[in-house]
């Protein structure tokens, strides 16, 4: 089956919702953002929903979980008291719209630049880093033995995976090689494996002007590994969206996130978080400069958006050079 047109997709989603909710859908809209998967909003029987879907044939996040596992993890996180949208149902093969699930719509903002700049978030912004720390401590405290099977990837695994992508891509990036060498020489100490969100950053959190952090989204890269990964990734310079002096997501200080994490029972290894900040910067660089470029050049995603992301690799090179010279 090829990719569905919007009309075909709308018709199929309509009949799925009629079957499950007893009502047709209205107001189907594609949300922008989310380069590797689609998000849609719609209304059914007076209630607003979000549908998350993997477009067919385009694989840019090579480690993405099947949508059914992603939905199961979100439900487990909800039980652990983590703010997430409630999953309504997971689509099966007979539904004919590909891998997808439907969840309740939550009111809030996910666009990073708006969270950082719009005045309506002024009051909640100073608390966001601490809210992130509290949320991550709860996440990392979940008993992994009770979860469905998830991929395992720790520091060595992630480093090898991305070094492998770089090698397979064939284009030379001397600064990336320098980072790989440094990371190999500075591997963090092993600690008990935990549930790692894997994409915890500004852009994947939902923020409301009243309550601050109200939901954690984008669970497709969730895995078992080193919890310090989730404390390093939000501080990657590309996720500060121009607010470089605010290391956590462009909105807060590391100490605020770390203190809240510790207060909620978590243990921080600052050498490890630094390792993950540098590895995270390298990973984003390789995603841009190798994986996105390969999806673009192979024709899997020939869009101008995908192609132009390739030229963002250089921003991670300058950030890596600065970090490897010991700067922030």
């Amino acid at each position, binding site marked *: 089956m090829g990719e569905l047109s919007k009309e075909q997709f709308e018709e199929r989603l309509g009949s799925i919702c009629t079957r499950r909710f007893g009502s047709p859908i209205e107001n189907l809209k594609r949300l922008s953002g989310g380069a590797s998967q689609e998000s849609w909003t719609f209304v059914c029987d007076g209630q607003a929903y979000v549908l998350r879907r993997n477009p067919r044939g385009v694989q840019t996040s090579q480690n993405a979980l099947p949508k059914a596992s992603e939905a199961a993890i979100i439900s487990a996180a909800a039980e652990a008291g983590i703010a997430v949208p409630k999953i309504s149902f997971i689509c099966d093969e007979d539904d004919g719209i590909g891998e997808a699930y439907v969840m309740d719509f939550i009111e809030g903002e996910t666009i990073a630049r708006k969270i950082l700049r719009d005045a309506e978030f002024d009051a909640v912004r100073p608390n966001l880093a601490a809210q992130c720390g509290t949320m991550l401590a709860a996440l990392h405290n979940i008993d992994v033995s009770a979860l469905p099977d998830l991929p395992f990837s720790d520091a060595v695994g992630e480093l090898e995976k991305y070094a492998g992508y770089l090698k397979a891509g064939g284009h*030379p990036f*001397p*600064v990336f*090689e320098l980072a790989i060498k440094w990371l190999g020489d500075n591997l963090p100490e092993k600690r008990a494996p935990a549930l790692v969100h894997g994409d915890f950053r500004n852009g994947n959190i939902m923020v409301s002007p009243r309550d601050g952090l109200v939901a954690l989204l984008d669970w497709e890269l969730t895995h078992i590994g080193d919890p310090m990964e989730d404390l390093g990734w939000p501080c990657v310079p590309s996720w500060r969206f121009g607010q470089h002096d605010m290391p956590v997501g462009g909105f807060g200080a590391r100490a605020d996130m770390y203190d809240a994490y510790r207060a909620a029972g978590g243990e921080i290894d600052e050498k490890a978080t630094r390792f993950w900040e540098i590895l995270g910067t390298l990973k984003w660089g390789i995603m841009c400069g190798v994986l996105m470029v390969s999806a673009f050049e192979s024709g899997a995603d020939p869009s101008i958006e995908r192609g*132009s992301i390739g030229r963002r690799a*250089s921003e991670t*090179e*300058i950030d890596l*050079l600065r970090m490897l010279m010991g700067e922030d």
Partner: protein
Amino acid sequence: MQDKPSAEKLLGAARAFLNDTAMPQLSGHAAFHARVAGNVLDILARELELAPGFNRAETARLESLLGETGTLKELNRKLCDKIATGEMDLSDEKLKIHLIKTTMGKLAIDQPRYQGYKTAKANGWPEEDSGETIK
């Protein structure tokens, strides 16, 4: 030799069409993609202007660092190998300056508005050389 109009002038006209005619008529996803397309044209315009000189400067530095000649890609591959084995690292001042200038050159073309690039300039990091004095 290509005839007129020059590549720069044609790009400028394409950019003006996108900005003045196409974009005001678009909304939603299409408007977003038009903005991205405009940014891509800007990258191309800067690349046409700057890359020939930058590439000459980068090649000259690589030849001096590695003590051999070759294409930019070959020389960069050799440099990657030497870094991967630990034979060269940032304690080598010449390598450090080379990587800084090369990266600054990429940003001057790809993303001159990136904050990390502006910060680097403010901190006194040298820009890529224009390559004009290098044969």
